């Protein structure tokens, strides 16, 4: 396993100077993943923050080959690149050992890109699909997605006089991907970089479709100070709101168990999107969210022990 110093000394595949916000989790995630292996790569992005902020013509922050097609089709697009690679390699037109990474936010992955993702996983392409999950449609201005947690305020789940933010819990996309019986799928968070880089390497070394769901805080959408990204990630994981685990050939493995499982309120109270949940009248929502986290965590423990 590489040390942080070694990782930092690797050539940058996503250079500085891009236009992502200060404190954005997405670029931290992507830089760690691209540093995991030395192979030449083709990266595809779904439409989203990462895409618009890294490639405004005539500039690009990408030092790998990169393609953007549309919002809902990054999985299909990169599966086409990978098919072309196999065809051209067979004909001797490509000799290098390429890796392929399709990247979408939660909008491009959980929602509009879900069909293309499912099809790509089923077809068995050798590629890594990376979801940087910031839990809402941040690029269009913080609208709810199926990754938005229960009770979170977004511009399409606003807190009103009769509604306390989003009325539905999150979709468990990682479990849905696991149900495709892919050889490797994992959840990770970039504050635990060794875990994330290790998972990226495993995924990229796997001969088949692999999936990483990585939590990527959004200071604007979650409403916190950009200096607190890593602290918030730590709270997300230590409250078991975002457990770190991997599923290798169907075997569930828990990668991190907090010494003390913190109440989810510790994660919520540092973010403006949940501020209303600390009003007395919204206490049932807060309790429901805690119950949801507990239920998922217990289910994960059972799966990992099985």
């Amino acid at each position: 396993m590489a040390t942080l110093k070694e990782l930092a000394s690797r050539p940058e595949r996503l250079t500085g100077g891009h236009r992502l916000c200060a404190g954005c989790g997405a670029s931290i995630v992507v830089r760690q993943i691209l540093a995991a292996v030395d192979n030449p790569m083709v990266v595809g992005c779904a439409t989203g923050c990462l895409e618009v902020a890294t490639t405004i013509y005539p500039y690009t922050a990408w030092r790998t080959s990169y393609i953007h097609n549309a919002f809902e089709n990054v999985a299909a697009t990169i599966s086409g690149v990978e098919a072309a690679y196999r065809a051209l390699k067979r004909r001797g037109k490509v000799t290098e050992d390429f890796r392929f990474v399709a990247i979408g936010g939660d909008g491009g992955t959980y929602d509009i890109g879900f069909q293309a993702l499912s099809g790509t996983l089923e077809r068995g392409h050798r590629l890594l699909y990376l979801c940087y999950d910031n839990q809402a449609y941040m690029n269009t201005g913080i609208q709810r997605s199926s990754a938005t947690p229960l009770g979170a305020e977004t511009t399409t789940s606003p807190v009103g006089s009769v509604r306390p933010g989003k009325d539905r819990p999150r979709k468990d996309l990682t479990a849905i991907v696991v149900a495709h019986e892919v050889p490797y799928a994992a959840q990770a968070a970039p504050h635990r970089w060794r875990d994330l880089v290790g998972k990226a390497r495993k995924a990229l070394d796997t001969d088949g479709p692999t999936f990483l769901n990585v939590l990527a805080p959004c200071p604007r959408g979650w409403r916190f100070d950009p200096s607190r990204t890593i602290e918030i990630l730590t709270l997300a994981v230590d409250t078991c709101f975002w457990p770190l685990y991997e599923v290798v050939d169907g075997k569930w493995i828990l990668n991190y168990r907090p010494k003390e499982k913190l109440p989810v309120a510790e994660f919520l109270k540092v973010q403006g999107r949940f501020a209303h949940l600390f009003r007395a009248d919204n206490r049932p929502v807060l309790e429901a969210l805690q119950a949801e986290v507990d239920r998922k965590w217990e289910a994960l423990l059972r799966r990992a022990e099985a």
Partner: protein
Amino acid sequence: MTQVQAGVSQGRRVALTGNEAVALAMKQVEPDVVAAYPITPQTDIVQYFSSFVADGQVRTEFMTVESEHSALSACVGASAAGARCMTATSANGLALMWEVLYIAAGLRLPIVMAVVNRALSGPINIHCDHSDSMGARDSGWIQLYSEDAQEAYDNLLQAVRIAEHPEVLLPVMVCLDGFIISHSLENLEVLPDEQVRAFVGTYRPDVWLLDAARPVTMGPLDLQDFYFEHKRQEAEAMARAVPVIEEVAAEFGRATGRRYGFFEAYRMDDAEVAVLALNSTAGTARYVVDRLRRRGVRAGLLKLRVFRPFPQRALADALEGLAALAVMDRAEGLSTAGGPVFVEVRSALYDRARRPLTMNHIYGLGGRDVGPDQIEKVFDDLLQAVECGEVRRPVSHLGVRE
């Protein structure tokens, strides 16, 4: 019906349906990647190609994707990666590709797609009209139309060369009529595999994602500063396709004896009245022209093969001497001002000092059959207009119950 010069080609005559002819052309081209999703009446193409893959007759990476949107999305990825790639669809499948049609053209990717023309829903219908490809006319794809299986086969081979020409680099649709051509058995001449391989050559893109020495960013966000310039470059490429389509047709003609242009003018030299049609209806119209000629009517046919780029000047040259012209549209634009072909053909004639009376017949929607008697009725309308010196009904629906 294409003029054949005897003795040029070493092809063989076979009986194939339109879909079989398309699938055979795809097999002979042997693209690096084919990504497709089945839809009636295109389905046979996907099935035949699957059997070529299953029997090891092609080395193509064949992607059985989960939708037409993903079919074209995968083609965009594959083409950008440096692969020659193809797909095929019909109607709602083409509509599902809509977003990606523009992206494929905007990224200047030479993808070739067979469009087996079928009416768009709704109401849902599986039979032929041109509402699918006509709706895609402004997406930046070159559009070739095919009267019969022979032309579908020949157009598909030429499409590869046109699309990949370095002066063009635009995707090409090859259109053929659903069921009428896709499922009818015809005799046609097919080329030996080696002659096809020699004709299409190999695809060597300048810029490709899998060029490890030169990583490239494709599809960046393109804002007020440059989007306009890039769209103009796309329009210029479409204009440069005009001589390329002619050159490729000339080379194809030398190799096979089958001559193609932007359109075929049949008995137009001294024609007084003519119809303009695309795809299989042109065959019926040609028969009617001959029948009328025997009765002394100076009738003609203009069969349009290339709708994009639109051959505005050449068409006006060919049509300006007529007394009256009927444009046949197998798509209802619902604008109340006539179908898409009519609007553009009439616009082409506007600057001419001498121009015919024009009228538009919208016909054959949802697979409604159009026979010789109905086309003769169109000629009746034309002769009547010539006699009165005016067109009383510029836009009418042919063969519909009132």
